[in-house]
């Protein structure tokens, strides 16, 4: 590897304010060609603002941005793309009703006689997808028919189509499953060999470790430190990020006592996604769901929560048969679901924090049909304190909160109902370390209080760290249950690929 790297972008004393809030203050930052530069920081540390400035979404309030030595002021992302700065955003920017190829070339379609050359577009899209090891995605597939992980791959393909000099990946791997993550690793190495710079933002430490040459830590809108990979230990990095020591990342697991099953699922079937799921979750247990993306986890949780129609099979709550006819009925039965996508399924983004918190709880804070505003205030206060939601005024829209605090609102609104069985669908996606720990601790506290937790995560380390037992799903069914010492990353990966049944295929 040659050290003769040029500066691709540099920020000089850049600040950005939103109203009275400082998102970035006096940041100096440089990114070199042929490198993978990791940016670390908790939610609200200023990472998103930084990349929005780099990619032309926002203008700095003060300071200057240099691209290959020239000062620039972008007023749109299109101008940044022209200079080769391309960003894959955390929020998926694909149009669900257009095809994969249409989405990849949405702003620069290949043309012939002034019209879109569909054949060329399809061919180029297929080539890009093949480069991303996703050749099974047909360019004519509609985006809405793809899983979240595949969509994210398409999103990356869209960025690659613009032949970037600097590729920015903002939490781009958080929705990806194991295999796709490896593909992205390989891609970034290839790009580095071609002299392309990448900026990589992720909350998964091991990814950043594995991938990046240089790391920059941000905290509270300030650039704390930049160093080469290996110069600092993980513990030091975490301390730089949160500004304090953290103890254990996962709360200790108590010794498991045999308990009666709280939730039992027998031969659960739904369309092509669930093909006879059997599951027994005991009271006081954190039961993990593992496996590759798209093996039926999401459908299983939705089916148990009554959100799917035409589910066949048996569900028992505390040994009593239960038919989940609707989320409303499940809520009454003491179930709660923290959905996969907090922005479309968990929250009403433009409604206030207060309204979001109260939504499932109006029956509890009303006298007859009329809301008792004093009881409602109390409930909101309790919810905010219990999960330590950092919110100025609960009358503000929930979209003004950081990702971690938004997720806390989703969890808090269910905790106010004191549910007996909590279903969590990947609740830590795109969330900072501190909030993750709080969520893990809350899960353990609930379990210790005799509640039942069913927890799906795409991050195997979380499953191993948190769960008493883990069921691994493959192709719409549970293929293995692991606990205790048998609960290792190798065991989960092997079961996820269903290796022992299909041999070494």
């Amino acid at each position: 590897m040659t050290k003769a790297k040029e500066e691709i972008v540099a920020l000089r004393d850049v600040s950005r304010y939103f109203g009275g809030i400082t998102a970035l203050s006096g940041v100096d930052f440089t990114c070199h060609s042929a490198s993978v530069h990791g940016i670390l920081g908790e939610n609200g540390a200023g990472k998103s603002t930084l990349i929005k400035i780099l990619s032309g979404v926002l203008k700095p309030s003060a300071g200057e941005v240099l691209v290959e030595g020239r000062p620039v002021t972008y007023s749109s992302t299109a101008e940044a793309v022209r200079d080769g700065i391309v960003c894959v955003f955390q929020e998926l920017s694909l149009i669900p009703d257009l095809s994969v190829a249409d989405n990849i070339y949405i702003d620069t379609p290949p043309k012939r006689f002034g019209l879109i050359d569909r054949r060329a577009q399809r061919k180029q899209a297929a080539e890009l997808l093949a480069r991303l090891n996703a050749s099974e995605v047909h360019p004519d597939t509609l985006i809405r028919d793809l899983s979240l992980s595949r969509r994210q791959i398409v999103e990356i393909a869209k960025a690659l189509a613009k032949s970037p000099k600097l590729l920015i990946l903002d939490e781009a791997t958080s929705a990806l499953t194991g295999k796709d993550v490896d593909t992205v690793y390989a891609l970034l190495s290839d790009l580095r060999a071609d002299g392309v710079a990448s900026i990589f933002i992720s909350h998964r430490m091991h990814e950043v470790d594995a991938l990046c040459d240089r790391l920059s830590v941000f905290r509270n809108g300030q650039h704390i430190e930049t160093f080469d990979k290996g110069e600092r230990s993980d513990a030091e990095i975490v301390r730089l990020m949160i500004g304090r020591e953290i103890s254990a990342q996962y709360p200790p697991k108590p010794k498991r006592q045999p308990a009666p099953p709280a939730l039992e699922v027998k031969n659960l079937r739904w369309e092509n996604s669930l093909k006879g799921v059997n599951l027994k979750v005991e009271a006081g247990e954190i039961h993990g769901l593992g496996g590759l993306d798209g093996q039926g986890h999401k459908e299983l949780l939705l089916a148990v929560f009554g959100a799917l129609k035409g589910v066949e099979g048996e569900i028992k709550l505390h040994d009593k048969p239960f038919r989940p006819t609707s989320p409303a009925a499940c809520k009454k039965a003491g179930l709660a679901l923290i959905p996969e996508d907090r922005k479309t399924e968990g929250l009403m983004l433009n409604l206030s924090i207060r309204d979001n918190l109260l939504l499932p709880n109006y029956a509890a804070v009303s006298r007859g049909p009329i809301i008792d505003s004093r009881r409602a205030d109390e409930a909101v206060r309790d919810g905010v304190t219990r999960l330590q939601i950092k919110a100025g005024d609960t009358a503000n829209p929930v979209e003004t909160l950081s990702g971690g605090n938004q997720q806390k609102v989703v969890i808090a609104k269910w905790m106010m109902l004191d549910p007996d069985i909590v279903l969590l669908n990947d609740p830590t996606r795109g969330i900072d370390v501190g909030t993750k720990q709080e969520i893990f601790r809350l899960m353990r506290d609930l379990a210790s209080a005799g509640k039942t937790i069913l927890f799906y995560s795409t991050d195997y380390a979380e499953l191993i760290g948190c769960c008493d037992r883990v069921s691994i799903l493959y192709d719409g069914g549970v293929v293995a249950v692991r606990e205790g010492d048998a609960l290792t990353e190798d065991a989960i990966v092997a079961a996820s690929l269903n290796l022992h049944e299909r041999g070494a295929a």
Partner: protein
Amino acid sequence: MNTQFSVSPENKPIFIALGFTLVIILIGTGYTLITQGAAPMLMPSYLAQQLQIGAFLGVCAAGMMMVILLGHIDLSIPWTLTAAAMMATTVGGPWAIPAGLAVGLIVGLFNGLGVSVLRIPSMIFTLGVDTALRGLMVAHTGGFAPQTEATPLMRFLAADRVLGIPVALFVWAGVSIAIAGLLSRTGFGKAVYATGAKESAAFLSGIRTKWVIVGAFMISSLCAATAGILLAGYSAKAYQGMGNPYLLPAIAAVVLGGTHILGGRGRYIGTLIGVILIVVLNSVLSIMQMPEAVRQIIYGTVIIGMLLVYGRETTSRN
């Protein structure tokens, strides 16, 4: 990510609508001062009379707001209103008003089930219901103006005055208090906002979104039926097409009052101001003795113009 305004974005359109209303009143008053040397628009009796006519629109708009908050629309207002009026006068006697309201409840239930259970877009479904109702009423009346008359109670509610104030204004006020209270003080009202903001998230929060939609459509039709009963009382009888002039103004009043046309946002006070704005605009145009054609053009242009101002507000915020 954060913008700070002294006026919250939710209330901004309400202030704009209020400003427009005042400007229109000033223009009208200036015009009459110059041409007639008098200011009839500022006389209480004139205002009361204008608001009495506005009450019919106000009641329609109150119901329309419920469905617009859900991101839906109710295009069956005109013939729901007419059908309720016709049924009320046909039945007559003490059962006239319950008969009219029952029409509203049935149509609303039908609309709501079509939209929430059959999942047909409300724009198509309610338009179809409107047309079917028109057919039913033509069959019922033979296509002529019904000969039946409004009952004395209907006439009292629509045309009489108590303490110098039109009774219709009390009805409008009653409907307003009910809707405003429903939206701000009940779980149902909050569920309407939540369902309009993000139906999937509301559903997964354990809200029975189907019944929220059905409920909102029933309230909308019930309001239209109430307006029909009032209007029949005001004109002493029901007539073909009596609901036609109320559809666009009702939608316009709701949207001008700051309710988001895609649902989830809006305050009832805004709808109230939107109705007053439209009533004032209409009366200024008639004071200026504009020919009907010009009135329609100005009326439409003003509505589009004001919506443009709002549109710019929202885009510049992002």
